[in-house]
């Protein structure tokens, strides 16, 4: 792990903070996944990880590698952008699918379809 | 590390074999998939386990095994993955065809008579 020694202190501390923040947020999100009672509550939980959580870690990565290689390493932005676009798709689809399934099973947790 | 990975390979193999011996085609295909994970890891592991020694040569310098991972098993695994993918796809298509023609998803194409 010789490369770690090449990192200046400020960057190291910043990286460490960002990493931990991201990891803690992600963990909290999954705790929600574990704790929440209903699926519709649980569906909110992973967004912690997929937004700020991964954001922090990507920032840490960008910072770390930019300092390490002494040039701007910003391709992590791509991952960020993709996360923002793709995670919602899954969650939307999943929430709607759950809604359909619950409706057909007559669950009272969900609202009926709008009808006149 | 070797211990963890070999135990992991063992569990994958055990689960795969268990499913391989089940009567439903879907179980068998899942079993084969698990087995091919196990085998891919197995092939991979024959080169020895190395952390942080990827087989990419920096700046085109000649590499050596002290610095880099053994690339041969990796290349073999890649081929094995592709072939495994192909055969899984084929097995799936076939199990669907069998299910369509026989009306059952039993591996023998007929429900076992009791």
């Amino acid at each position, binding site marked *: *792990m010789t490369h770690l020694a090449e990192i200046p202190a400020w960057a190291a501390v910043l990286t460490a903070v960002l990493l931990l923040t991201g990891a803690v947020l992600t963990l909290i*999100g*999954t705790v929600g996944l574990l704790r929440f009672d209903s699926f519709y509550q649980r569906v909110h939980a992973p967004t912690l990880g*997929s937004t700020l*959580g991964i954001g922090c870690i990507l920032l840490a990565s960008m910072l770390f590698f930019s300092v*390490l290689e002494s040039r701007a390493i910003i391709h992590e932005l791509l991952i960020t952008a993709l996360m923002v676009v793709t995670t919602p798709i899954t969650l939307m689809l*999943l929430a709607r699918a759950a809604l359909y399934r619950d409706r057909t099973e007559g669950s009272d947790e969900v609202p009926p379809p709008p009808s006149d | 590390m070797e211990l963890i990975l070999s135990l992991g390979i063992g569990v994958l193999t055990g689960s795969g074999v268990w499913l391989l011996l089940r009567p439903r085609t879907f179980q068998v295909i899942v079993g084969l998939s698990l087995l091919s994970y196990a085998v891919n890891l197995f092939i991979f592991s024959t080169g020895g386990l190395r952390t942080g020694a990827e087989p990419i040569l920096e700046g085109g310098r000649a590499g050596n095994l002290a610095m880099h991972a053994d690339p041969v098993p990796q290349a073999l695994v890649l081929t094995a993955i592709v072939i495994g993918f192909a055969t899984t796809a084929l097995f799936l298509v076939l199990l669907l065809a069998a299910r369509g023609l026989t009306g059952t998803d039993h591996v023998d194409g007929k429900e076992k008579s009791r």
Partner: protein
Amino acid sequence: MIVKLLMGTIFLTQILLVTAMAFAAFRVLRGPRAQDRVLGMDTLYVTATMLLLTFGIRTGSILYFEAALIIALLGFVSTAALAKFLMRGEVIE
């Protein structure tokens, strides 16, 4: 000192992330409904992406970026397919 700090932090981060993966895995294993499993799986993918990134930092290699990128770009395809299967009964109509 800095190396120790970074090593420690990375290790802690990875432990936290793997714990997060374990929680997600619990949903995958336990459900109770299919949508819960899919949700767990999606979370697992995202967390794995992060784990790969931290691994990149740990080894100082940018090569693992690709794997992370592919998860971010295409990992959702399988979860979306699962969701579609739940909603419509088949993946491609």
